[in-house]
């Protein structure tokens, strides 16, 4: 199988979590014998070639981060320029986000199903998974732990050409966490995560508190 892969993240490739995910996913795909060509929507100079690839291939996959419950504005701007296909191509998606619970991504997933039809394509399903914010803040083995599971999903996509299998459905993880897990997460955020975020912010050069209100008002 040959697939057109589009990284729909507006973030430049160097810092793109979606790109790290795709790297693992494409490793699995190629191990299964598939080939691909990849385009970065963050780079407007690639849009013309990406449009041509969309028109002339029958297996297309767009990977994207969830932005305010749906696709990022920059990706929408690109998609608005496409000429819809005539039902002769399959369009699948990898939807990733920061929130860990699967339920957080369902509104975006529902749009992607509609979008495939609007672009004149058959819908090939969406691989949905959250809890990916940490990719940007980690390196090496810790980052690998987050992205590695996508390798197997690349193999599945290579074999089946879609994300409708039970294996892909389970990949999302829990739809919502049980009460006690949520309680534990809340405690972790209050006691540990805030310190970690503050450390990351100092490394990024922040000189103001993370809950600063630059346009007025008291702190959180």
């Amino acid at each position: 199988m040959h697939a057109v892969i589009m990284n729909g993240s507006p973030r430049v490739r160097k810092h793109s979590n979606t790109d790290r995910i795709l790297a693992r996913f494409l490793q699995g795909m190629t191990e299964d014998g598939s080939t691909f060509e990849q385009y970065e929507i963050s780079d407007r100079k690639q849009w013309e070639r990406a449009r041509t690839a969309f028109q002339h291939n029958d297996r297309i996959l767009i990977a994207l981060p969830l932005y305010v419950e749906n696709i990022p504005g920059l990706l929408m701007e690109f998609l608005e320029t496409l000429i819809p296909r005539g039902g002769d191509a399959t369009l699948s998606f990898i939807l990733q986000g920061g929130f860990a619970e699967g339920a957080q991504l369902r509104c975006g997933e529902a749009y992607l199903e509609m979008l495939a039809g609007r672009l004149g394509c058959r819908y090939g399903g969406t691989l949905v998974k959250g809890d990916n914010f940490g990719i940007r803040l980690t390196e090496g083995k810790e980052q690998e732990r987050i992205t590695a599971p996508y390798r197997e999903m690349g193999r599945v996509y290579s074999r089946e050409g879609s994300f409708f299998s039970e294996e892909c459905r389970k990949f999302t993880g829990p739809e919502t966490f049980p009460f006690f897990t949520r309680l534990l997460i809340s405690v972790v955020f209050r006691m540990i995560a805030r310190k970690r975020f503050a450390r990351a912010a100092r490394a990024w050069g922040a000189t103001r508190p993370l809950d600063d209100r630059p346009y007025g008002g008291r702190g959180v």
Partner: protein
Amino acid sequence: MVLLINTTDDTGVTGQLRELLEKTGTNFEIVQTAGMKINPCMGCNHCWLRTPGICSIRDDYETVLKRIIGAGQMWVITDTALGFMDHKGKNIFDRILPITTMYLHFRNGQMRHVPRYPVLPDVGIIFRGEADRAYLERWTERAALNFERKALGVFRSDEIREAVACMR
């Protein structure tokens, strides 16, 4: 204060809204973004981690953001594309990230980012063109969660009177 953000090139809708809102004595402000430079969010996370609350993209969105903070209602008037709001409307929402901190908590059964400011607006949509209205309504409900506020509804541009009835 009712904030109306018109991302379309057509000032006819906002003209009607101005007329109706003046009659009802509603406190409102209209922002026309057609002549503004508003870039898409790049997802750099600087507004969370490097310059908390301040977007790294130095364009006209900052004036919009300052008005969103403290407004009681925010209505985005948008064109549509591919069954949803077009990229200009979506960019207004994507760029709201600085109004939240990167801290997380559970509110109303949902994990959300902790808002940076105490007063944020309810959210409504007025759309021009063809869209999947049921989906837009679902999306607006979800988008309002980011403000920890409520959705005011989704109205076509020929339903201005119905929308105005929700503005106060």
